[in-house]
């Protein structure tokens, strides 16, 4: 149906090497999000999959069929562009029909597909209007409709929400997710917004500088980031990074000396570390608890209270790096005061400062 396999995919524009040895497997029906900072190559990867750009080396297979040399139309894919790319001189109906007419579908079949898509996306009243008479959100839906009527094996979305305002973005996000659940076709979605990635994806592909950093479910990437980059990229506010040294190694736990006479317990595999080794301990803002007596001294600079939750900004005593705490409810510590904080034990992610890789854990954090 809509499976995708990329093998050793490389893409270069002249001398500029943009994608490096991409290997990726996507199963039929998955909602996969390509996410990463600007310039990481996610859009290029999407366009290569679509056939809008050539493959330099490597292969692309859709449904076990090598499509590397095929034109976009032949790959049975459909794409929703960031700017929607609706034909401005054609009515919505004609926009939807254009692709099917090119493929010589019968009139009746075209009509029925258009009506079905229009119903699904609630754009029936606009069928005879031109794109310039529609709002951004409506054009967005027409663009999706154009993709739907093609009944492709794979849908491709290129940052479709970036031109919408915040409220519309949230609404449309839900609509796309709902659409996916109803038509169950493979969807590949490119965005730079990690919130979209976390909320919509079955599987996230994190890209940086043309390479895949990690592939996994949203929660998997959140809980078990493979390296410092993924750890810092997903999750907002960012994970706090504390410098430390391995202090003691036990049977099933390792203690990290974070300074101030405080040791943090963590679940790193004891066999892989040595005492005195430098490490980075990553703790997400929401994984710190305010401790009564024993903990890291955190000097408060200021806080932002949103009513339902509070973000506290400060730094460890005598250090410069900003540390962020997240507390539920309203929390108003005195700016300049020192409070003691400790991480939740299972939530300390340990990384090697040189390789930036996460140190192997005894057991992957599972969720019941």
């Amino acid at each position, binding site marked *: 149906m809509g499976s995708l396999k990329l093998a050793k995919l490389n893409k270069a524009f002249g001398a500029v090497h943009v994608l490096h040895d991409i290997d990726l497997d996507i199963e039929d029906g998955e909602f996969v999000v390509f996410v990463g900072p600007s310039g990481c190559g996610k859009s290029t990867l999407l366009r290569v999959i*679509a*056939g*809008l750009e050539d493959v330099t080396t490597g292969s692309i297979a859709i449904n076990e069929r090598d499509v590397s040399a095929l*034109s*976009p*139309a*032949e790959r049975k*894919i*459909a*794409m929703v*562009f960031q*700017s929607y*790319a*609706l*034909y*401005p*001189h054609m009515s919505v109906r004609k926009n939807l029909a*254009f*692709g099917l007419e*090119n*493929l010589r579908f019968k009139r009746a079949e075209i009509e029925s597909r258009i009506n079905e898509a229009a119903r699904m996306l609630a754009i029936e009243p606009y069928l005879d209007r031109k794109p310039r008479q529609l709002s951004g959100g409506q054009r967005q839906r027409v663009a999706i409709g*154009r993709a739907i009527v*093609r009944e492709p094996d794979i849908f491709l979305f290129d940052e479709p929400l970036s031109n919408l305002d915040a409220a519309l973005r949230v609404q449309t996000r839900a609509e796309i997710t709902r659409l996916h659940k109803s038509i169950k076709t493979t969807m590949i979605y490119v965005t730079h917004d990690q919130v979209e990635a976390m909320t919509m994806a079955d599987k996230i592909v994190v890209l940086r500088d043309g390479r895949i950093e990690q592939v996994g479910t949203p929660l998997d990437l959140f809980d078990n980031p493979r390296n410092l980059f993924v750890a810092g990229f997903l999750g907002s506010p960012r994970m706090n990074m504390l410098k430390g040294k391995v202090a003691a190694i036990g049977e099933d736990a390792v203690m990290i000396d974070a300074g101030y006479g405080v040791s943090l317990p963590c679940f790193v595999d004891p066999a892989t570390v040595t005492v005195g080794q430098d490490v980075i301990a990553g703790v997400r803002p929401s994984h710190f608890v305010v401790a009564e007596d024993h903990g890291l001294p955190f000097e408060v600079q200021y806080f932002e209270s949103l009513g339902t939750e509070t973000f506290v900004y400060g730094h460890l005593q005598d250090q410069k790096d900003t540390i962020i705490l997240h507390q539920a409810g309203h929390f108003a510590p005195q700016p300049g005061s020192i409070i003691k904080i400790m991480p939740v034990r299972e939530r300390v992610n340990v990384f090697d400062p040189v390789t930036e890789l996460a140190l192997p854990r005894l057991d992957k954090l599972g969720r019941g």
Partner: protein
Amino acid sequence: MANPNVAKLADRAMDAVMAIIERPLNLLESFIGRKRMPYLFLMPNLVLFGIFTFLPIGIAVGYAFTGGTDLLISDRPFVGFENFSKLLECGSYLEPGSCRESLFWIAIWNTLWFVAFNVVATLLVALITALILNRAIAARGFFRAMFFYPVLLSPVVIGLIWKWFLDRNGLLNAFFQMIGVPPEIFLLDVGWSRFFVVVVSVWFHMGFYTLILLAGLQAIPKDLYEAAAIDAASPRRVLLRITLPLLGPNLLVVLILLMIRSVQIFDEAWVLTNGGGPGTANTFVVQYIYQMAFGGDLRLFGLASAASVLMGVVLLALTLVQLRLGKKMES
């Protein structure tokens, strides 16, 4: 462009002019006040327009109703509509020979045929060239410049160059002889001369229109073409259903502009055909007007003005259509 020596020189020149003009102008400013200064700045322009554009328009109509060969309008007898009736009286409008001013109607028919062929030919050539240049090949800039080069030349130069090329002993005949075709005296043959007047006109102006159409093509967003590729559109369908319709408004404006310019054909045709020949085969309306007023000793300013007025009405109509289309394009 920032040559320090040139800049210094320009600076000194500006200072020099300032020194001379500033005093009297500042004096003037203190008289009329700052708020009235724009009128002062506008004055030279408006005076020149007034004398050399608006005044002529005014007296053009006036002269059209006068006769005789005197220059001053006060010396000229009023003849009412006689000039117009002379021009417009015809046994059959399709038969110039049956008209009172047969040369005028010969000129009209020559011009009409020329406009038709020239507009179609230039539009086709410019469109094809613009479509090709839009394909982002290397050296696009070179070819664009090449096609544009003739636009910079003077009509006299172009007429002479082509006259030489088409000469009895010229290059084209040399080529003909090489392929075994007997040489021709192109410019003395009615058919050939008309053909080449169109060819020369296309050669002269197509670069200009190509640029305009190219700008229109490049305004079409690239991702429409990508969407069309995903929509399985063949190159033919892309051209017919996307490119040309989106270029449509642009094309229309160019069409009208071409028509307006074609109606006024004179300079290069006159030089090329040695004054409208052979016979009157290539005499166009502007040449008629020129001949009546300035040719030989005719000095028929009234008749020429009447013909100018008629031509002006046609051109005005076309220009208004162009303006309307231009406004529609903006929306």
